[in-house]
């Protein structure tokens, strides 16, 4: 039970983020929602690689312990974090340009493209 607790948290975070993206109306809040989903996915990868009582996956620094956490998910997460940062920066700058054009951050009013 206790072992699956982190996954539950990750799942909840993911759903919160998705909720914000779908139902929020402020562009900044939508961007926050995307970041929350991103964080949930990264945490999922980290939790996946965790082994109970495991040490850092650097052989010379791990000491006596024979159990190491898995290094691959950490490498994946690092990459995903970098990509996430770039996406968030680009998204925020697009929001800035949108605000300059439309004078609002409300998604209901930024709807010139339809049909």
């Amino acid at each position, binding site marked *: 039970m206790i072992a699956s607790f982190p996954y539950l948290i990750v799942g909840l975070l993911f759903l919160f983020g998705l909720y914000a993206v779908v139902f929020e109306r402020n562009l900044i809040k939508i961007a926050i929602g*995307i970041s929350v*989903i991103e964080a949930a*996915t990264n945490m999922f990868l980290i939790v996946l690689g965790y082994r109970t009582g495991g040490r850092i996956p650097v052989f010379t620094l791990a000491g006596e312990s024979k159990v190491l956490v898995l290094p*691959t998910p950490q490498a994946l997460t690092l990459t995903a974090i970098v990509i996430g940062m770039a996406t968030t920066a680009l*998204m925020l700058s697009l929001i800035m340009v949108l605000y300059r054009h439309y004078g609002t951050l409300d998604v209901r009013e*930024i*709807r*010139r493209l339809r*049909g």
Partner: protein
Amino acid sequence: MNWYDHLPALVLAVPLLGAFGAPVLGLSGRYARNAWFVLISACTAALALLLWQKASMNGVFVYVLGAESWKLALPSGMSLPIRIILEVDSFSALMAVIGSIASFAGTLFSLRFMERFSGLDKFVALYFLLTTGMLGMELTGDLFNFFVFLEIASVASFGLVAFWRDRPEAVEAGFKYMLISTVGALFVLLAVGLFYGRYNAVNMAAVGQMLHLGLPEKAALALLVAALAMKCGSVPMHMWTPDAYAEAPAGVTCLLVAVSQASLYGLFRVCFSIYGMSIGSSVVPWTIIVMGLLSMFIGVTMAVIQKDVKRLMAYHSVSQVGYILLGLGVGLLALKDAKAMADYGFTAIQGGIFHLMNYTMYKGLLFLVAGALAYAAKSRNLNELGGLAHAMPHTTFMFIIAAAAIAGLPPFNGFVSKLLIYESTFAVHPFLPVVAMVTSVLTLASFVKVFQTAFLGPRRSRLAEVEEVPGTMLLGMFSLTLVVLGLSLFPTWSMAHIIEPAAKALVDQAGYIRAVMGGGL
């Protein structure tokens, strides 16, 4: 050190070099930048052609990045591949060829089309990044690597869709696309995580070998199908397509069509090469078929009522993607049953792949024509265009070819691939080809409308000054016209030498796995 061995890496490295070299070359002026733009695109296309030739001669082969030897897939004593592996077979090499031809045509077209605008160094850099991302998605044999290239392509395309950032619509379209595809990409990452959690591997072949269908695998499949179907613009997640395609500069739209096909490629790579026989019940194939049918019908009905010529063509993209999904979905349905596969499944897959190739070529061409209209007549609104056939004879000629191909008129290539899809899907249920044919008729109607309003009739006084577009733009369109005509004139040759090996490579899951897991050297 033979460069021919390193082709898969070169296909990715050359456009990447192009991307980061563009701002440097841009310092020495317009001509240097344009020369660089064309040179790198042409090199990429040539390398992709060589790669395809190699794949059709040797069958599937791998390229291991960072190993002592490029074919060292499994280092001694390892049971799982640990390095990033590029895996090339006839299907992925064909996708790379299609993509790089579209990229090359878009390049030629963009030279003059974009001339009036500033920030072109960044444009060229993003254009090549998009090309790299697309090619990477098509050549990689590693799921996480696929995610990385997907993100490279996505981020570059957000920038390019919103390139005219003084137009509110362009920024809006870019933002919409970004929102949807960022969430989609995170779905893909989540699925990669699920695979890693189950099998300690992110290599497609390794995962495919060990796969046993359980709850996590089903969840991963659902996530991947949802994300990739969204990225290729299928109904019900198609709403970004008309906006992004219509608002991006025309040369970019031509490339974006090819990039959406890379997602489609990913979808079928996952379904056929990772899951294969173990895809379980027919839920997933039928989901894909139904998505295909809906895309075809909703796409074309939305297209008929459009007035903006580029939006109209963008809705046609949705409906054309439907055909491909239908063909390959039927193939997936028949995968488990050897008799059904021989009867109609393989034909459906061939039809799907052939249509994918045709669609990318004529759709890219149509978007370039729409861009040429906007460039010459300064308008994309059908109500403001008219009688342009005399002013722009070459563009008109190429439009007629592309429109005949998309409407599936014989003897054009669209007819061949649609016929294959009709024939094979009929064996599953007669309703499927009926929808496909109705869609085809509506497509024809819609393009007759465009032809009639934009090119025929009296010329409006506002358009009296309109001239044919400059030579390099015509050259860009012509290169795609040439491919469409080639595929139309030699359908038997293309079926035997291009499509059939690709279809065989796609269904040959064992071969795909063996190339990586079949032992070290």
